[in-house]
């Protein structure tokens, strides 16, 4: 079917008053696009006009009126490509007629009508785009596995398996130990989960194992770990193995940094690197080799849990670490699970137990990886002492008792027990006194330093996530076998997004439970349900051929023109989601269902061979080129043209809110929204400057450890690329100040007009681009 263009121009919301709409029709006619003007397109009558055009065969439609952020549902037409021109926000509201009056009879032909020029350009840009885009068709896998793999058979893993199974999905749990249950099976009891928070409850382990075993659609494989997980959501090929085995499908690891350089610290060349890499991973198949005997899964839940932290004497000598009767909470739990609380040193009854919540030494922070769990565990374990011995006494010394939310009820109940003594305090020493230990603390609530004689001292060690020691998932991904940013979160497989807690940067693989944060059993089970939902949702999205969050429902995917690929590997390296695996030559192998459609690969590619149906190098490039750049031949003191490529997720709404408040933007700027700054290919910038535009700037999200980029790395990568383009400009004798990149958060709507206008002033001060008119 051929594409038939149609332009619909709305006169509402002040557009008609500000602009010469007949002139816009003429601009459209230059592109042989018929244009219709209507008083209020978003009204029922207006929509009918568009529908009439569609009935006559129009299918590539430019709707000139308001931003795509509003009236989305109204301007949705099946089978049509819609381009929304934000004439109201980008022109009428931000370039007011008060500041830039229309041409009058007294004005000569050299009068610069800034408002109309901008409007004309946006019509050209829209039509240029529509010529270069296609209606997307979803990417569908030939066959799709809907099975879910759960890594870890503890409470989180079992719970997520049950939740997914109850929604009708087939699930396999792999557990590295010989039995299900994880840490919870080593516990005596569990902290209460509901009012009145008085008594400890039996752990739910046995009951949960029974539930798992009773579900027909759950398979359990104990003594099993994932050797490698290859492929992509909907068709992960998984090789399972016994934990002690070494097999050829063990996942290869990327070279550690220190192996990439020679003795002088100089990096080896590519050939040598590959040689070392092969040697390093000797005996292992490459990531691209699929295990013919691998099992297929659609999505994965990582519930690998945690291990108790090991406290060593060098860090905590003042707490008596090293003494047999100074133990961690985990060791205490094991003793408690076996029977009455006794001392490890001599097996005697431990009736006086001191629980130390914080390492002290002048700092009020808890032990690493503690979370609020260790506070509650201390309360629970204090109760064990009281359960076991009528005359037992438990002492809890804390800096901050952390029983948040409703768990405060448990703390409150424990405070009623006269055999449990609790105080804030800074523990200064734990010393051997005969067969006992003397715990000394200062800054207590008693107003004096205290010394407590204890049979046993328990330290509230934290819960170290499994991902600190091991990638666990063992993804056969070129970027590496584990999640990428775990170092930001001290090794947790956590999300950086408060709004989107299940973001792992690895589509189809979702973490739950203590591998994400220290959690109680109750919290872990809740988290397990969330991860199970995400796994199911990913499978459903893959089945429909659409992207998952944040571009949920997007049917486009990156398309590669491989004949021109130079194997530079940039796309593989820069993809925030590890969606590409290159082969040994460096040719990328796309995995479309891993992809989130941000376009970072498109921005990275120096050969410009990557694009999406409705968003590609040519579509944006053509928009850039369609901007009319006036020169001195056209006007005395020709206006400048400055291109702004801005993030549609945050910078665009920020600017539109500024527009709503009628903030004024310099009329020499032309705005083009991009999916993410990561998708900005520097060719657009070079093209803009080469055609005589006077400056180019990018507006995108904050980067760094607290990044706000929805695609994780986009704005950061753009920053790197912009630094490099600076060199290129220098060689063209163009000033570096002609390009810029600014961080704009969505609530910076008060600042963004100032940022833009200041940049324009900076460019104006440099004078026109010397390439103008060539």
């Amino acid at each position, binding site marked *: 079917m051929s594409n038939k263009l149609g332009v619909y121009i709305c006169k509402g*919301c*002040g557009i008609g008053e500000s602009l010469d709409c007949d002139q816009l029709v003429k601009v459209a006619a230059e592109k042989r696009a018929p244009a219709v003007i209507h008083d209020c397109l978003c*009204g029922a009558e207006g929509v009918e006009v568009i529908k009439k055009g569609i009935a006559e065969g129009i299918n590539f439609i430019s709707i000139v009126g308001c931003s795509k*952020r*509003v009236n*989305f*549902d109204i301007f949705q037409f099946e089978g049509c490509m819609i381009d929304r021109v934000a004439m109201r926000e980008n022109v009428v509201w931000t370039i007011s007629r008060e500041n830039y009056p229309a041409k009058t009879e007294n004005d000569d032909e050299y009068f610069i009508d800034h408002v109309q020029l901008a409007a004309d350009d946006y019509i050209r840009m829209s039509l240029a785009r529509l010529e270069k885009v296609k209606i997307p068709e979803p990417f569908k896998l030939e066959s799709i596995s809907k099975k879910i793999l759960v890594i870890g058979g503890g409470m989180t893993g079992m719970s997520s398996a049950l*939740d997914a199974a109850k*929604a009708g999905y087939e699930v396999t749990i792999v557990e590295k130990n010989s039995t299900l249950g994880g840490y919870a099976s080593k516990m005596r009891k569990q902290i209460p989960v509901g*009012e009145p928070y008085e008594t400890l409850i039996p752990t739910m382990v046995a009951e949960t194992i029974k539930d798992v075993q009773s579900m027909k659609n759950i398979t359990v494989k104990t003594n099993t770990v994932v050797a490698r997980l290859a492929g992509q959501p909907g068709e992960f090929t998984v090789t399972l193995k016994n934990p002690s085995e070494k097999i050829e499908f063990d996942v290869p690891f990327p070279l550690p940094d220190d192996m990439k350089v020679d003795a002088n610290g100089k990096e080896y060349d590519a050939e040598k690197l590959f040689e070392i890499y092969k040697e390093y991973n000797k005996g292992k198949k490459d990531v691209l080799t699929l295990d013919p005997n691998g099992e297929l899964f659609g999505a994965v839940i990582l519930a690998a849990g945690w291990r108790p932290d090991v406290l060593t004497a060098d860090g905590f000598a003042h707490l008596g670490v090293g003494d047999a009767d100074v133990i961690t909470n985990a060791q205490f739990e094991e003793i408690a699970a076996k029977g009455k609380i006794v001392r490890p040193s001599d097996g005697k009854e431990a009736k006086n137990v001191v629980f130390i919540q914080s390492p002290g030494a002048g700092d*009020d*922070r808890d032990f690493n*990886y503690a979370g*609020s769990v260790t506070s509650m565990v201390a309360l629970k374990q204090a109760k064990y002492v009281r359960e076991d011995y009528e005359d037992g006494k438990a002492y809890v010394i804390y800096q*901050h008792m*952390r*029983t948040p*939310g*409703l*768990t*405060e*009820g448990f703390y*409150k109940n424990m405070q009623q027990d006269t055999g449990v003594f609790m105080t*804030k305090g800074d523990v200064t020493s734990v010393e051997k006194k005969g067969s006992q230990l003397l715990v000394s603390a200062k*800054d*207590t*609530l008693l*107003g004096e330093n205290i010394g407590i004689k204890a049979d046993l001292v328990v330290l509230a060690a934290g819960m170290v996530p499994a991902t600190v020691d091991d990638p666990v998932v063992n993804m056969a991904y070129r970027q590496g076998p584990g999640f990428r940013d775990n170092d930001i*979160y*001290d090794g*947790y497989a956590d999300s950086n997004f*408060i*709004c*989107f807690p*299940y973001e792992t940067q690895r589509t189809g693989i979702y973490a739950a439970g203590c591998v994400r944060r220290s959690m109680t059993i109750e*919290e872990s089970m809740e988290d*397990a*349900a*969330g991860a*199970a*939902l*995400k796994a*199911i*949702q990913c499978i*459903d*999205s893959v089945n429909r051929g659409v992207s998952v*969050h944040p571009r*949920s*429902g997007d049917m486009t995917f990156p398309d590669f023109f491989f004949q021109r690929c130079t194997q530079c590997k940039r796309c593989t390296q820069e993809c925030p989601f590890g969606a590409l695996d290159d082969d040994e030559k460096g040719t990328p192998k796309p995995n479309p269902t891993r992809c989130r459609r941000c376009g970072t690969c498109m921005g990275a590619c120096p050969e410009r061979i990557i694009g999406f149906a409705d968003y590609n190098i040519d579509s944006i490039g053509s928009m850039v080129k369609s901007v009319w750049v006036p020169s001195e031949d056209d006007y005395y003191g020709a206006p400048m043209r400055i291109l702004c490529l801005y993030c549609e*997720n*945050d910078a665009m*709404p920020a600017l539109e*809110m500024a527009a*709503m*408040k009628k903030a004024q933007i310099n009329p020499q700027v032309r705005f083009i929204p991009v999916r993410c700054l990561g998708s900005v290919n520097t060719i657009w910038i070079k093209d803009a400057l080469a055609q005589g535009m006077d400056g180019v700037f990018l507006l995108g999200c904050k980067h760094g450890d*607290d990044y*706000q980029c929805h695609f994780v790395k986009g704005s950061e990568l753009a920053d790197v690329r912009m630094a490099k383009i600076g060199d290129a400009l220098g060689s063209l004798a163009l000033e570096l100040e002609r390009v810029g990149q600014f961080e704009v*958060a*969505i*609530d910076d709507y008060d600042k963004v007009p100032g940022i833009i206008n200041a940049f324009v002033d900076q460019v104006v001060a440099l004078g026109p681009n010397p390439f103008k008119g060539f």
Partner: protein
Amino acid sequence: MTIDKAAPASASVLVVGGGISGLTTTLETAEAGYEVLLVEKNPYLGGRVMQLNQYFPKLCPPTCGLEINFRRIRENKKIKVLTMTEVEKVEGSKGNYAVTLKISPRYVNENCTCCGACSDVCETEIENEFNFGMNRSKAAYLPAEMAYPPKFVISPEISSDDKKRVQDACKYNAIDFSMESKTITVNVAAVVWATGWKPYDATKIDNLGYGRHQNIITNMMLERMASLNGPTQGKIQRPSDGKAPKTIAFVQCAGSRDENHLPYCSYICCMASLKHATYVREQYPDAEMTIYYIDLRAPGQKYEKFYKKLKDDPKVFFVKGKVAEVAEVEDGNITVTAENAVSGEKVRQTVDLVVLATGMEPSAASDKPNADLTFTEDGFIVNDFKKGGMFAAGCANKPADVVSSNQNATGMALKAIQTVVGR
């Protein structure tokens, strides 16, 4: 999505409440392929977090995630949204509920282009609840810049003169005073209650002087003040005279962990006050702040780091001790009295501004859903997974921060789906 138009007769899942938890449940359910009806009693989505300036510990704007969520809603045909809608009652049982909804009139129809002409001419002013009454707004208003759906609202309090004025000003026939509240019934398989929370009424905490002294404000009021779209355009100032505060006392557990008020811990207030200290610091490099606390609940690696940042600030002081009383002295200054629990000394400190870290009360405590649910004594909805069918997400279930609420809300999406699948 479909906004406020012909209401559907059925959906798979009903989500009650369009705050961050309800939005999350809605989106996660719909993106897994199920039909969702989301009802929200306010004229806009986003709930409590719409009133926040930043989230802790990232100090990022809530609208950043909301914008993405609104886009996801906009582009998903499986989602229907009704604003200004409340649940009157739920009848039936798991898999087959009949829900009666009451929809209040917005007086603005779908023709609204959000041009703002009605607001420009409207003279009637109403109490601005969004800003906790710290200023007034026009009776024809957009609840916030980012309000979604982006449609104006007209308060029933609008004067009759203004009615004519706004109608004349609107070029798009978007204003309709003949709208009346209506009641509809929908059939759904599962219900997720994401009815959220409200700040505990600080006037009930007699000894802390809120309502008697102007320069004693609540944490949520500070949040609005610090917001660019708040009553002071983002400037933190004293309500009495608009002066920049040089000394501020934060009173933790204002109502929370108190048998006479909220016996539980409200989860967020410690982190919120630490965050507020960063707001103050950004505006006033020299301001001195004292945080009076019982326990500083900043658990976990991320929160500990955030807390550390404030501990490293030489002008932020921490005192373990509950504030016993407050008194207004000269110039509107406030003297707070507390006992330092560690030194045992009585602390008396006079400050320019007092911020009460008031806790969260579940909305269901005062506005109990008419449905077969179990509540805690304090009004939180207890999740009974064995029974199933109806679930509570986010702060309707327990006090929680945003990230935990979102986790919980995602999980509840699956519980609802299980009900639909099992039907």
